[in-house]
């Protein structure tokens, strides 16, 4: 009997053996490479850096976490979290009508057009898009040019004169960073919302209308709750991607650091790996809180 046949017989008699063989490689990947590296990161964050020599002290301490609460570091965390929250809210506001139209009204070619329109930006390089935005938002870029042509320069100046979020030009202000974040993560919000809206049965909406509900009431009590899992799924993408990104704020914005850049600077420039690790743990904790909140809202009930 050939080896293949022997193996085949053995697998038939002991199905668990086959199962184990199939599961061991992915579990090893998940356990060692994925979880393992996360644990190594977590461990690093409990070490500290010797202030005198700059070398890492391999003794467990909470000192590094304490440093996160220094005003300059705390600023970075707040700045990143607020940006992530605003980007998520704006993404929902923009993505919902688009997804609603694509899911309920667009038919045939129109639907294809919507899919392609949403997916197309994902096919080009992220860096190309960000650099393109740098030119669009630049002081001597397209927006300034168009606004000048429309005699709306005063409006742009008024927006840029706003405290904190304004700046010398769109490309060096928080507004610019915000616009680019919203643009880049938009498909990750539209697609889950669209998927969830497509699963809302049309009959329920009609029934709601038949029972005398206003369109607003139907939306609040029927459509929105049923679409919530999609919104939450999309918001997990936009929120976590914004929390972790370190390229957009580096190219567009006022040079003020976000968490990802702080990790890069502390690890790469300062050689302060413990502080970089502590910074990296922050988005993990924020996401845990976020997911816990989403669960409380019933976002995962449909899973």
């Amino acid at each position, binding site marked *: 009997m050939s080896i293949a046949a022997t193996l085949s017989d053995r697998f038939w008699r002991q199905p668990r053996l086959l199962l184990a063989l199939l599961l061991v490689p992915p579990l090893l990947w998940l356990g060692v490479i994925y979880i393992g590296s996360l644990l190594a990161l977590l461990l690093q964050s409990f070490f500290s850096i010797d202030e*005198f020599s700059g070398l890492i002290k391999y003794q467990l301490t909470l000192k590094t976490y304490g440093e996160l609460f220094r005003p*300059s570091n705390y600023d970075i965390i707040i700045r990143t979290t607020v940006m992530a929250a605003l980007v998520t809210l704006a993404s929902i506001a923009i993505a919902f009508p688009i997804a609603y139209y694509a899911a309920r009204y667009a038919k045939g070619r129109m639907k294809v057009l919507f899919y392609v329109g949403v997916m197309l930006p994902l096919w080009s390089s992220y860096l190309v898009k960000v650099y393109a935005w740098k030119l669009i938002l*630049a002081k001597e870029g397209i927006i300034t040019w168009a606004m000048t042509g429309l005699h709306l320069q005063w409006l742009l100046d008024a927006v840029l004169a706003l405290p904190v979020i304004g700046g010398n*030009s769109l490309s060096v202000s928080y507004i610019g960073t915000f616009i680019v974040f919203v643009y880049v993560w938009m498909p990750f919000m539209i697609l889950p919302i669209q998927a969830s809206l497509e699963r809302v049965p049309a009959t329920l909406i009609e029934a709601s209308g038949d029972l005398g509900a206003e369109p607003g009431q139907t939306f609040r009590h029927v459509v929105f709750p049923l679409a919530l899992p999609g919104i939450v799924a999309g918001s997990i993408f936009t929120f976590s991607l914004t929390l972790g990104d370190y390229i957009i704020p*580096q*190219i567009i914005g006022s040079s003020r*650091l976000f968490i990802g850049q702080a990790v890069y600077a502390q690890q790469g*420039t*300062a050689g302060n790996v413990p502080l970089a690790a502590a910074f990296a743990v922050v988005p993990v904790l924020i996401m845990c809180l976020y997911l816990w909140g989403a669960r409380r809202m019933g976002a995962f009930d449909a899973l």
Partner: protein
Amino acid sequence: MMIKKLLVATTALSLAGSNVAWADMMTALGAGEGQVDIVAWPGYIERGETDAAYDWVTKFEADTGCKVNVKTANTSDEMVALMNEGGFDLVTASGDASLRLIAGNRVQEINTALIPSWGNVDPRLQDAPWHTVDGKHYGTPYLWGPNVLMYNTDVFPEAPKSWSVVFEEQTLPDGASNKGRVQAYDGPIYIADAAMYLMTHKPELGITSPYELNEDQYKAALDLLRGQRQLVSRHWHDAYIQMDDFKNEGVVASGSWPFQVNVLESEGVKVASTIPEEGVTGWADTTMMQAGAAHPNCAYMWMEHTLSSNLQSDLAVWFGGNPVVPAACTDGSGMLDAAGCTANGMDIFDKVRFWTTPVSTCASQGECVPYYRWVSDYIAVIGGR
């Protein structure tokens, strides 16, 4: 238990690391080992793949049989990290990394007697403090350059005389304020530029070296930078983004490298560079050899090769720096000529204060603010604190 094992492992590793440092300086060269592994800045070691005219590796490999493997690193700190990991023979370290490498026993003393071209090295660089400690040489100079003041020639019909155009709010020759139109470097070492400015403008602080600052001097430099933050819309750290900012963002003056000036000028952008009266900071890179390098003979051969006039000449043109072998400016061995050397700042060596890692025990005043604090404080300054 897991943690304990890891701790034991890391301790063992760090002990193993420090053992290597006791290896002695080489006294004689043997045959090549067939390869040499180098950590280098991007663009520093070219084998004709980017531009066929710039190749200083192929011939070396053919002559010595040492295959050159290059690992590029983008920051000084990446270089230090790679050298700490080990597995390389050489590194092209800047002055803000070299002393750290020496202090950490990551590099070994080199025997200049084994490098015939050592005598051709610019005498001003032979005993430079960023690679010479207690009279011991820890590497061969590779290339140096100044951090010049780049300015827009439309706005400044005459070159600005002082760095004050980027440090203090003022009306520029075109009648508008400099607010939002100047830039600063996005790296902690830039604190030294502020300190250098204060050496001229606040002599009462008694700063003797911009890299050796006591608490008061350091605080004054940070205050100057906080004021500058109000003028700067975005700090630069990527040469290409800075060039774009000069073209599209209305930036008219900034500290910069000859590299950006040369590229922008070649594109027809109206910029020029100058050395203000306060002087300039600069970088000077050194080829250093890892303690316990696996291919020491090939490493020595490479160091000798890097000091050849031909390589220095082409490298200086390619990267926009100055050769460490002065003959390369004039002997026509490569693409460089005397005008190119002058453009890159060859004649202002004495005005350049080269990047050095700030350490807590400093020569000029005993106790200085160390580099890791420069990092966290500069992050705070950029964040508006």
